[in-house]
């Protein structure tokens, strides 16, 4: 092992000197590998981007117009400076990748997971465990209270809620972040229950998913023209910012409307109450506690860096299990008061 670590934390974010490249930088840099297109990972204004082929399709719609984006297939190794670089599916959203970096001379290997989930998800490539010496893992849900029920159970809950609403003339509204969660929810719906409408912010991302060959049920743009069809029996997928807007109110059916939030945070009642919604469904695009521990184990890593979420707690737990672990600071740490940090975690991470 050399004097400097293969991947280091700089003022711009994670940086690999051997490859001459940043990973998910939080400021515009020359060259950036982007694990996925969520706002807290994809910064506009970089010179060149590198992503997975499906990741590129989504990223092109999220960073600045005309951005130079290179794609490298999952499992293909490319040489960058003194490093060999390979992307593996992270199972978080369409095109999300883990980054494996191997030093060409020493053979030392690091894996940066980005956001990930270990459960299968029909709207994105399935997560693959990757072996390495040092693992940098996220920890959004890095506490043992977060254990997800089987997806099938949650999907059945969502559809049962929709069916009940539609029987009583209530429009169903699901608040889900426009990229990733919205498509996962759409993929979980039983289209036979009624018409499905989507907010304008969700439309372009659905197109990206279609371009990547992901099958989603038929949807209409929820607007003045389609309101009549959606009212009372339809389900509308919209970003949380649409809550309480006049746009949303026009879809109320004769029985009103019922709103729901779909997020891993909904596992905790207190978090459910933060949101002025009628229902909370626990469906997350992040690994739960057992998923995090399993990933650490399967990586075979000797050292584990923990970032983004309950990093302090997970790192301490892993240390007590005999692993060398440390906290990797994220962009927000120290800049905000506790209350806003929590909000940040609740909104950004599930974007």
């Amino acid at each position, binding site marked *: 092992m050399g004097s400097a670590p293969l991947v280091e934390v700089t003022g711009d974010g994670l940086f690999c000197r051997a490859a001459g490249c940043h990973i998910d930088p939080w400021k515009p840099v020359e060259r950036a590998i982007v694990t996925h297109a969520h706002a807290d990972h994809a910064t506009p204004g970089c010179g060149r981007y590198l992503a997975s082929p499906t990741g590129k399709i989504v990223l092109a719609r999220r960073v600045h117009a005309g951005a130079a984006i290179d794609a490298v297939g999952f499992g293909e190794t490319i040489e960058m400076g003194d490093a060999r670089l390979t992307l593996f599916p992270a199972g978080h959203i369409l095109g999300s990748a883990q980054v494996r970096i191997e030093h060409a001379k020493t053979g030392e290997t690091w894996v940066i997971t980005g956001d990930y989930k270990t459960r299968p998800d029909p709207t994105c490539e399935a997560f693959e465990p990757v072996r390495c010496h040092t693992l940098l893992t996220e920890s959004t849900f890095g*506490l*043992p*209270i977060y*254990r997800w*029920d089987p997806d099938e159970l949650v999907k059945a809950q969502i559809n049962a809620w929709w069916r009940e609403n539609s029987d009583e003339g209530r429009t169903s509204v699901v608040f889900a972040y426009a990229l990733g969660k919205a498509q996962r929810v759409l993929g979980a719906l039983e289209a036979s229950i009624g018409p499905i409408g989507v907010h304008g912010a969700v439309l372009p991302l659905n197109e990206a998913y279609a371009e990547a060959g992901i099958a989603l049920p038929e949807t209409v743009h929820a607007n003045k023209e389609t309101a009549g069809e959606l009212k009372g029996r339809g389900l509308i997928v919209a970003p949380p910012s649409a*809550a309480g807007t006049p746009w949303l109110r026009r879809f*109320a059916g004769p029985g*009103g409307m019922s709103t729901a939030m779909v997020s891993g945070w909904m*596992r*905790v*009642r*207190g978090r*459910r*109450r*933060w*949101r*002025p919604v*009628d*229902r909370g469904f626990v469906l997350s695009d992040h690994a739960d506690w057992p998923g995090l521990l399993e990933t650490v184990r399967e990586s075979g890593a000797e050292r584990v860096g923990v970032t983004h979420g*309950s990093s302090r*707690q997970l790192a*301490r*737990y892993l240390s*007590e299990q005999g692993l060398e672990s440390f906290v990797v600071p994220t962009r927000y740490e120290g800049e905000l008061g506790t209350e806003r940090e929590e*909000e940040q975690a609740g909104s950004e991470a599930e974007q």
Partner: protein
Amino acid sequence: MKRFTDLYTALDATTRTGEKERLLVEYFSSTPPEDASIVLAILTGNRPKRAVKTPVLRRAVSEMSGVPPWLVAECYEQVGDFSETIALLLPDDCPAGTDEPLHRFVRERIGAMAGLSEETQVMALRETWSGLSREQKLVFHKLIGGSFRVGVQKKLVVRALATVAGVELAVMDHRLAGGFAPDAEAYETLLRTEDETDNAARPYPFFLAHQLDAPEEGLDAALGDPRVWIAEYKWDGVRAQLIRRAGQTLLWSRGEAIISGQFPELVSIGRSLDDGTVLDGEVLIWRDDSPRPFAELQQRLNRKVAPVVQPGLFDRDEAVLVAFDIIEAGGEDLRSLPLQARREKLIETVERSGDPALRLSEPVRGETWEALAKIRAGARSRGAEGLMLKHRLSLYGVGRRKNPDPADPGWWKWKLDPYSVECVLIYAQAGSGRRSGLYTDYTFGVWSDGPEKPERELVPFAKAYSGLTQEEIEKVDRFVRANTTGRMGPVRQVKPELVFELGFEGIGRSDRHRSGIAVRFPRMLRWRTDKKPEDADTMAALEALLSAQDGGRA
């Protein structure tokens, strides 16, 4: 245990009052008394005692889940509820849960726990956990923790039980007024059909006055000769009926709640009244021959008191009933007598009583509307809010009438401040400077429609910062923190529960406000803890103020 868990989970998941009531009715009408009585006791605040100490629970959960104690503490910090934290940490090895009836579960799994050694308690916990679903575990922890709270107002429980029993709300309220112990037999008695004892307690529906909006110069046209009206001060107190029947006295507030316990000195008036007497009036705190501000009355109302009336409970007996009507005398319903005749009986009754806590509402005298308007203008200095106008021939009607009926002219409240609206707190933001850190800047809403539209919503219409005492501000601050339902930057959305009387100087149309209306110099006149959010004003009330003002100018 299954049904109760489902009830608890469903009540917890909804914020809609109507939905909560429906759930309660469904539960109580289909649950055997052995179980229902336990649930009713919990819902009315008679909770089971703590059976297991927190450290024992903490140890057991750590052992069973393999999560170290420090991490259990970290989890608790995120969840904010210990019962829930444990339920989330334990393995989900029994999603179906137990079918055991609640009363048996409480007796055998909780009651039996109390005397055991710590070791045995841990073993018993593990054994019980292995048969419970996640939701049942949460309820189990609440039951053994001794602090079971369900987010349901007692009023709602009473209403649901009244529906189940098929009796009037007031009847059920009275039956439950002495508290409820978990006993199947008592539960069955509670749900019996109405009988004599209920009749003795029942108040009459309060007759309510309508807001008088006509300008002073239009009163001759609107109300006719002022001399056919009885004008009285409109006091800022609590409207109540004092009932003396079958040797017992009860004090009912307009919210259909029994407030006898808070006002022993008013209950003792009953001893000076004949059986079969019902007086209607305003409860006030009276000192140095004038009424005290509403806040002092509020303190009395808020006092937690035993259901048994205790004379001399308060340092000073200074509550009074300012009686303005008599609805029953000699056991006879007087509501179809004209006010003039009722008033004579009232004067006679008050004089015969001689109890200093019973005062007669004295009419004010004015031969012309101009003279009455002058008296009204000085009402504030007397501690009153304005005048009440009651036609000498008016009957004691039911509820609040929509329009004046020439054949049966009613009661009018002629309030001093024409611009006062009752509205609901919906958003709060922290103040700055001296008030930083406290939620002091509020946004208030009024209803989009009347109560006949169940889907009506609260429309934000004014912001206000001033008018509350420091103590009230701190109370509202605590409420905001505990009842936040959403956040937009620094603004918290809160559960629509607190009602305030908002005063303002002017009103006009505005494109910049969602309500389409802007008000000048809004401030909180009063925190209406006696009002429920559904009592708040509607957009129609604002429109009426607006057109009254526009009409006045034109």
